[in-house]
Structure formats: structure tokens, C-alpha cells
């Protein structure tokens, strides 16, 4: 087996690894994973084709090895730079968004991305015919072009498997870039010693190769510092300096971002400090900090850069999610199934009931479960709920779990990330809801966190809100109805805007600036607007699905549990918002695994930590 096939194999692996790396970085920075992966792989193949085409057109047939050497060097430098280039582009974009500079937004991130993908692609596209030619120069009688092609494809397979299975869970994107780049550099070195030793310009080349090697080594050693720099740039982007020139200054003054990686997601713990207005106001609505002074403040959990949990007001989401269906159904379920929600906060609400006999939690990510059990902040937030003897943790795919079992449950809680790509959209599909319905015992209910039905106008003076055109309620309704549920009932974590404590907090902290000449009515109106806008940011949407009577009757015995936010008034408020039910199921709106109709989020947008927080 001549060495040329092995070289082809390794180089093809390097090229696909660069592209997957760019795709991964892009998906984390911009969302829409499947679409960005497809676009990157597609653009890569396209520009490889372009490379092969220009190679076929070129007349120059000399110095095959010479050109291969140059291409390896270029690929090495480009591949090492690509992740940093993308992150830097994102940073500049965030700066542009913050300063309302549309030119900066347009001209930073996506051009940097396209440049990286296409240049790596074209270089790989020229590389392959060069290798074919090099092989036929060595072994002209064997017609080795097809074998080179085969080695190339084999290398792509190896790279495609290595990336998700080994590299992503263990290394950050910058070090992956440096490692792969080092392999390319090694290839250049081999070509250099093997074929080009006697070329006259060898001293210059040795210095060049040594220089690149030193840079790679330095990058590899400092990769966690690079990662930390860009993470801080991401999460603390509101503290950017006023000019673009100051952006390269260090971020050492900001708190450390604690990043954990798994095969499925990147989990970040961020210390935001007590900065957001909602953090002050939440004291008026929640008893949490009065009861427990030690409860973490200003901490936030992000998954792949999307907000999951803010320690200052997490109980608003979880109490409405867990308890409203129980009160509505007038029954405390004995057997509960929780899908997703590996952070353990939803389970914390459910274990409060003494009459709950068993809780099965299914989450796909073992790293998340591990964090929920042992992370100092997260385990304090969930009160060690996953260690409760009634809780049974299953690590696995929620879809497969409900599809492939027969055990029935009295209540099923669905807590999944936003359906922003096709992988997750199947957890919102008609098929999935059909399986959920089959796993419910008689009189049982399922309840889901429904991102997208909370797309509502901000409340006006009378507290009225209307659905925006982007509201996903008709899609959810059609899908759940098509799955065979009789009742689909939405509710929201509504808080009352007319709260005297909230008014006094706003007054005392002077959160609303008014001229001293303002009359009493003007002040009252301004403060009430301020408060109602900020509780609007805490408004999450949920959907209950169940069979039987729409409003179940019966007597719920007081379970005597302690709640921080929910009370009888707020329970009534949860159902106050009216979303009209369509007349019949619209088949084009039904989200199925064969034809997804949910895909939240615009395509060409960049993820920002807080702009999607609602």
C-alpha cells in the first residue's frame, strides 16, 4: 500500500474536520443546528467542486509536490484561525447590534463564516486532484485515481465519526482547530522532507514551518484562555466599551464562566451579578429570598448559549409548570414521568407532594444529570431533588422512552428546549404526542412548556395582550389535536401588575426617572407601565393536554406544601389570557416527523444571551 493513499486518507479527514468544526461553531453561535450543518457541508462540497473545476482548467502541470506543500501550509493556518475568526466576527456583530450599526452587523459574522468555509473547501478541492496526479506520476500503470478517491472518502468517514464521538465531548473548538491544523502541518513537513529537500529555498521554508508550529503550540497551551475570553465577550456583551478599538482589551475583570461539555450540548454557568431590574422586582412577587437567604443570586444556566435558568426568578417558571395542572385536575398524580428537565428544578416542585409515589426523569445528557447532583450552585437550587428515594433517573432519548414502553403514568411533564431545529422538533411532533397519550393512565394529563405561544404584545393600560402573527399556538393546537387529545388548554405564568410591593420597590430604588413636576397620576401610570412590562418578561406559556371533561370536578385536599410564588389569585390569572381555538385541524400546520412545521427563530440571526431570554 503506497504511502500516498495514507496521506490522502489523513488529509481528507483534516478537511472534513475543519468544516465540521466551522459548522459546530456556527450552530452554537447562530442556532438552527441542522440547517447550518447542511449549509456548511453543502458549501464545502460546492467549493471543493469549484476547486476541482479550476484545477481542471489550469494549464500548469508542473511541480505537483510543490503546490501540495503550499496548500497544506495554507490549510493549516486557515483551519487554526477559523474558530477564532468566527467568534471574533460574532463579537463585532454584537457590538454592532448594541450600537445599532447595521453595516457592522452585516459585514462581520457571515462574511467571516463564508470566507472560512469556502477557502477551506476550495483548497481541499485543489488538493484532491493534486494527490491523484501525484499518485499517477508514481504508479502510472495502476490508474490509481479511483483509489485516491476511495482513500479520500474513507478519510472523510473517519473524520465524520471522530468529530461527534471523540473530539466534541472532550476538547473546546479552539483546541480542535489547533490539533487538526498540527496534523496538516505534519503532512506539509513530510512532503518537505520526502520530496522538496533539494529545493533551493529550503531555509526560508523551514523557518516558515517552524513559525507556524510554534504558534500552534502556543495556541494549544492557551486554548482555555482563548475560550474564556470569548465566553466572557458573549455573556457580558452589554459591558462592551464604546469604541471598536477597545474591544481587544482583556476581560479578566469579569466573573469566570463555568463551561461543561457533553456529546449533546455545552452547559455554561454564568455569574450575572444582581443587575437586571427583574431581579429587584421579583422580591415583590416571591418569598424565596425571605425564606432562604442562602439561595444563589444572579446565577444563570445557559445551554448552547440559550438561557435555561435564572436563579433569581426560576420559581416563577417551575411553580406554574408543576402545580397549575395539579390544581386544575383536582388530583395529585401518584406516578409521574418527567421528560427533559435534567436540572432537577421541576422535580424539586413535584417531590414536595407526599402522595407522589414515584417520579421517573428521562434526560439524554449524563453531564447535565451529574451537574444537577453535584454542582455546588445547581444542587443548592434544586435542593438535591434528584437524590430523593422516589426519583428514578433514566439517561436516554425521551422520544424512544415513550415510544418503546408500556408503563402508564398519571402525569407526564414535557420540558424541552425551544424547537429551533429538526432534532428537537420531533419532540413536538404529532407522533410523539400520540405516544405520550398512550402512556397516560385514565384521567391523567400531560403538560408541556410551549415556547412560542408566549409571543404576545406587551400589555396595554388595561393589561390586554394579543397574540403576535408569529405565535405558534395554532401549530401546537393542530398537532396535539391530531395526536388524539380531546382537550388542549393553554396557560401562562401571569403575575398581577398591581402589586403594592413592586410599586414601592420601583419608588424607593428610583427605577423610573420622572421630572419633579410630574403629577401623582403621571407617576402612578409610569410606575404601573414599568412594572407590567417587567412582569411581562417573566411570562412563560404552557399547554395542558388531556382527555375527559374540559374542567375536571372534584375536591383537592390541601396538600400542605410550601409555595413561593403561586397562590389562589395567580392561579386564576394563569388562565386569564384567551387564545382562540381554531375550528378544525389544519393539516399543513400539524408538525410531524415526516414533515416538520415548527421551526422557531429566523435563519440569519446571531444568538445573543439575553435577547432571546423571554
Amino acid at each position, binding site marked *: 500500500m503506497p504511502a500516498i493513499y495514507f496521506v490522502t486518507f489523513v488529509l481528507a479527514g483534516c478537511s472534513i474536520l475543519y468544516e465540521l468544526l466551522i459548522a459546530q461553531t456556527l450552530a452554537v453561535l447562530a442556532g438552527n443546528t441542522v440547517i447550518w450543518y447542511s*449549509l456548511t457541508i453543502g458549501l464545502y462540497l*460546492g467549493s471543493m467542486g469549484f476547486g476541482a473545476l479550476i484545477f481542471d482548467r489550469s494549464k500548469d502541470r508542473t511541480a505537483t509536490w510543490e503546490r501540495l506543500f503550499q496548500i497544506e501550509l495554507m490549510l493549516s493556518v486557515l483551519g487554526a484561525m477559523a474558530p477564532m475568526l468566527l467568534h471574533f466576527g460574532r463579537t463585532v456583530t454584537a457590538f454592532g447590534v448594541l450600537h445599532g450599526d447595521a453595516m457592522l452587523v452585516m459585514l462581520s459574522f457571515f462574511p467571516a463564516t463564508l470566507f472560512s468555509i469556502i477557502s477551506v473547501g476550495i483548497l481541499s*478541492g485543489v488538493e484532491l486532484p493534486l494527490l491523484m496526479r501525484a499518485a499517477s506520476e508514481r504508479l502510472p500503470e495502476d490508474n490509481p485515481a479511483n483509489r485516491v478517491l476511495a482513500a479520500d472518502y474513507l478519510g*472523510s468517514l473517519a473524520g465524520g465519526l471522530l468529530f461527534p464521538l471523540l473530539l466534541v465531548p472532550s476538547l473546546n473548538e479552539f483546541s480542535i482547530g489547533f490539533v487538526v491544523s498540527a496534523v496538516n502541518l505534519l503532512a506539509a513537513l513530510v512532503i518537505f522532507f520526502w520530496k522538496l529537500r533539494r529545493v533551493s529555498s529550503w531555509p526560508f521554508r523551514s523557518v516558515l514551518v517552524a513559525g507556524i508550529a510554534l504558534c500552534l503550540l502556543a495556541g494549544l497551551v492557551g486554548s482555555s484562555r482563548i475560550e474564556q475570553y470569548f465566553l466572557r465577550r458573549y455573556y457580558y456583551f452589554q459591558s462592551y466599551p464604546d469604541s471598536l478599538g477597545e474591544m481587544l482589551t482583556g476581560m479578566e475583570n469579569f466573573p469566570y464562566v463555568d463551561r461543561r461539555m457533553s456529546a449533546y450540548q455545552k452547559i455554561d454557568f454564568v455569574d450575572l451579578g444582581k443587575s437586571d431590574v427583574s431581579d429587584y422586582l421579583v422580591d415583590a412577587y416571591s418569598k424565596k429570598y425571605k425564606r432562604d437567604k442562602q439561595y444563589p443570586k444572579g446565577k444563570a444556566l445557559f445551554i448552547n448559549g440559550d438561557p435555561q435558568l435564572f436563579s433569581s426568578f426560576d420559581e416563577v417558571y417551575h411553580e406554574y409548570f408543576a402545580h397549575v395542572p395539579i390544581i386544575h385536575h383536582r388530583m395529585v398524580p401518584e406516578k409521574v414521568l418527567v421528560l427533559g428537565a435534567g436540572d432537577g428544578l421541576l422535580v424539586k416542585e413535584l417531590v414536595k407532594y407526599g402522595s407522589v409515589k414515584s417520579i421517573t426523569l428521562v434526560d439524554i445528557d449524563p453531564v447535565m444529570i451529574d451537574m444537577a447532583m453535584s454542582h455546588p450552585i445547581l444542587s443548592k437550587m434544586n435542593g438535591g431533588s434528584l437524590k430523593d428515594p422516589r426519583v428514578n433517573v433514566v439517561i436516554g432519548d425521551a422520544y424512544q422512552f415513550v415510544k418503546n414502553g408500556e408503563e402508564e403514568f398519571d402525569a407526564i411533564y414535557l420540558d424541552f428546549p425551544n424547537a429551533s431545529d429538526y432534532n428537537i422538533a420531533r419532540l413536538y411532533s404529532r407522533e410523539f404526542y400520540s405516544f405520550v397519550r398512550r402512556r397516560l393512565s385514565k384521567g391523567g394529563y400531560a403538560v408541556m412548556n410551549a415556547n412560542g405561544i408566549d409571543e404576545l404584545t406587551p400589555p396595554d393600560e388595561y393589561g390586554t395582550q394579543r397574540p403576535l402573527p408569529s405565535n405558534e399556538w395554532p401549530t401546537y393546537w393542530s398537532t396535539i389535536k391530531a395526536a388524539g387529545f380531546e382537550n388542549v388548554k393553554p396557560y401562562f405564568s401571569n403575575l398581577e401588575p398591581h402589586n403594592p410591593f413592586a410599586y414601592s420597590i420601583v419608588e424607593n430604588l428610583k427605577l423610573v426617572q420622572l421630572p419633579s413636576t410630574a403629577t401623582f397620576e403621571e407617576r402612578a401610570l409610569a410606575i404601573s407601565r414599568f412594572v407590567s412590562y417587567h412582569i411581562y418578561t417573566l411570562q412563560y406559556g404552557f399547554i395542558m393536554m388531556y382527555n375527559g371533561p374540559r374542567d375536571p370536578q372534584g375536591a383537592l385536599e390541601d396538600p400542605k406544601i410550601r409555595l413561593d410564588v403561586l397562590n389562589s389569585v395567580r392561579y386564576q390569572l394563569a388562565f386569564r389570557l384567551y387564545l382562540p381555538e381554531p375550528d378544525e385541524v389544519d393539516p399543513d400546520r400539524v408538525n410531524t416527523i415526516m414533515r*416538520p412545521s415548527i421551526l422557531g427563530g429566523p435563519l440569519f440571526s446571531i444568538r445573543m444571551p439575553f435577547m432571546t431570554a423571554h
Partner: protein
Amino acid sequence: MFKNLVLCSITLILAFCSIVYELLLGQALSAFLGNTVLRYSVTVGLYLLSMGIGSYFAEGRFIRYSALTLLWIELFLALVGGSSIVALHLVHAAELGDLSIFLFGHMLIILIGVLTGFEIPLLMDLWRRKNQREGFTILGVNYFGAFLGTIAFALVFYPTTGLVGTAFLIALLNAVAGMFLVLFGRDFRKAKRKRFAFAAIFQPLVAVIFTACIMYSRPIEAYLQQLYVSVGGA
């Protein structure tokens, strides 16, 4: 010149069809078996590998009758690719366990990959005969077709026509593109012409079958969905 253009278009469409078949299978398998990330990597990787295997074996006597071999491959690809999603659903409905779906799905992926890999050297050969060049243009156009396929699948086909409808549509496209290979029939010796004509009859037939399937794709989809939901678990 005209024939070059036709050859390039055929290459483009064939590459487009193959990658869409593979993505359809990857998506369907992840629906049946779960673990999407792994499924995608394995699908794309296996596709590339089996393409490599296909192009490795496309030597010798096949090269002598490139257009004829190609015609048969196109026919086969359209049939296998177009019926793949329906077949996968039927295997699922037979309740032979996850392993059967796994094996059947990956067999289809490898089969389509090998056939696609087989095409490329043949197309390169047709090009070489016309132009006295190395044929890397075909390689380039092939990659470009794959590029269009991935983008069209993610942005257009999957959310609009869905898995079932897309499979039929792509099979139709494949069969129609295959028909244009008849243009290259003149390259053959007289004795081969009959076999060539025999193969050429089947292409329109396949095209008609898949046109009918497209017209009834919504009812077929609804039926398969019912089948899928009724089988899982209990």
C-alpha cells in the same frame, strides 16, 4: 458543446438526487431509532465510504460500456431511493425489532452510496472521451450537485413535501435525468444497441410510476403515519 452541457446537467442532478436520498434515510432512521447526531454522522460517513467503494470497483469492463451501465444504475437508483422511505416504514410495521430497521436502513444507505460512487468514474469516462481531459470537471460538478442537494433538503424539501413526497419527487427527477443518457447511445457498437434500447424503455415507465406516487403522496403519507403510530411500543 451541447453534449458537454447535458453531461454536466446529468451529473449535477444525479449527485443532487443521491445526497437527498441519503439525507432522507438519515432523517427517517433518526426518527425510528433516535440519537440524531450520531445517526447523521454515520449516514454521511457511510455514504462517503460506500461512494469510495463504488468508485474503486468501477473499473475494467464497466468502463467500456459507460452509458449502458449508467442507464441501469439510474434505473436502480430511482427505484431503490424512491421506495426507500415507504420500505423502511413497512419494515418498522413488521415489528421485527430495532435491529431489523437498523440493518435495512444502513443497507439502503450503503447500496445508494455504492451505486452513486459507481457513477462518477463512468461519467468521468464519458467526459474524457468527448474532451480528452482528465475529467475533474465531472468531479467538481458532482460536488456542486451535492451542495445543492443538502441545502434544498434542509430548507425546502423536508419542511414542505416531507419525507415521503420528497422521496417520490427525487426518484422522478432521477428517472427523467437518466433518460437523457440515451443521447450518448451512439457511442456503442451496433450489437450493443439493442440492449441499450431495452434498458431505455424502463426509464419512462419508472417516471410514470413515480408521477402517480407524487399525486397520491398525501394519502400515502397519512397511511404510513397511522401505521407508524399504531406499531410502536404496546
